[in-house]
């Protein structure tokens, strides 16, 4: 027992600790959440007095009411739409992150498209296009089935250098649509609708890589 204690001391006194390099500190600062930023300091202003003040108060309240009513009306509809898609984006990114933690990346692990595609049979009621894009720098790694906001999704997993691209696919409700790209917490997303299927590609690589992926995927029909 005392040997163990001694070894603890020896180790403690002789092992180096490290300081994170400056570049990393800057990276943290660049990616720090906005709410950690101290609130701006408010400079007190000179106040108008007497009747002028009362009039300004009354006018201010009236304007605030009117503006509030108008803005509320116009925003509400837009908000509902964007809240839905924001929640979707958050869930897709969560799913992407989860897939990288532990062993959840693939249910069928194969670089062979002829293994991955049949694997989906009976698990989903649509047929996603499965192509290996290794020659374009996106080797097929495998696939899995996810459940995302009411959709059963076929998820294709591609590699991109040391990163991964998760492509979530499910039948689209509407017409084909061009691509929209966005970023969420440092992850990049690209969405498009083609051939009646809705595609969401999520990656921790760069948005440029996603564009390249889309081109490669489309070119391999």
């Amino acid at each position: 027992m005392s040997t163990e204690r001694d070894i603890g001391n020896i180790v403690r006194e002789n092992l180096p600790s490290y300081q994170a390099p400056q570049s990393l500190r800057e990276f943290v600062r660049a990616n720090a959440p906005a709410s950690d930023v101290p609130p701006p300091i408010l400079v007190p202003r000179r106040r108008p007095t007497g009747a002028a003040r009362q009039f300004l108060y009354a006018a201010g309240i009236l304007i605030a009411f009117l503006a509030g009513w108008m803005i509320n009306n116009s925003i509400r509809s837009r908000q509902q739409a964007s809240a839905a898609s924001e929640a979707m984006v958050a869930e897709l990114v969560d799913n992407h992150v989860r897939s990288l933690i532990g062993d959840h990346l693939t249910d069928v692990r194969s670089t062979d498209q002829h293994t991955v595609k049949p694997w989906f049979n009976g698990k989903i009621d649509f047929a996603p296009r499965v192509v290996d894009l290794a020659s374009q720098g996106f080797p097929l790694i495998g696939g899995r089935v996810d459940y995302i906001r009411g959709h059963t999704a076929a998820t294709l997993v591609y590699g991109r250098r040391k990163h991964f691209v998760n492509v979530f696919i499910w039948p689209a409700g509407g017409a084909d649509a061009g691509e929209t790209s966005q970023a969420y917490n440092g992850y990049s997303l690209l969405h498009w609708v083609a051939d009646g299927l809705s595609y969401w590609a999520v990656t921790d690589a760069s948005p440029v890589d996603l564009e390249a992926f889309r081109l490669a995927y489309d070119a391999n029909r």
Partner: protein
Amino acid sequence: MPHLDAAYTLARYLINDPSEVDDVLQEAVLRGVQYFNTLESDNNARAWFLTIVRRECYTAWSRRDGKMDSVSLETISDLEDAAISPEQTAERSLLRERIVHAVGTLPGHLREVIVLRELQQLSYDEIAVITESPIGTVMSRLSRARARLADSLRDLVDVDVGEMS
């Protein structure tokens, strides 16, 4: 972000290539910032951030070949201690090299508990959270890690034990 140094140190002990350590930390930071404001206490934040960093290290291993790294680390120098002779300095740095090598070549799951316990002086509870293992496992790993180190540094430890008996 607090605890960045602790996180960096942990990653340095788990991943051999310093540039990969940077990658791992960046991933962990990106993963971390989105939840950082929801954490209550500082201790929570530390254990929680170290958990993420450790996971990222394991992910990095599994992306590569699934094998845990052995790490080779530089030793601390004794610049501040001018009182000791050059021979003593040389002797001490030789000793340090051996110790650092012994820790660096421990299996990853033993090395991480040594670093968390001896270097960062975390509690068993915290280590259990970070390594996502039961506390009993933490204790037995720590004891195994110490036994291995004592074994490979036997001559150093035996001196101490010999004095006691």
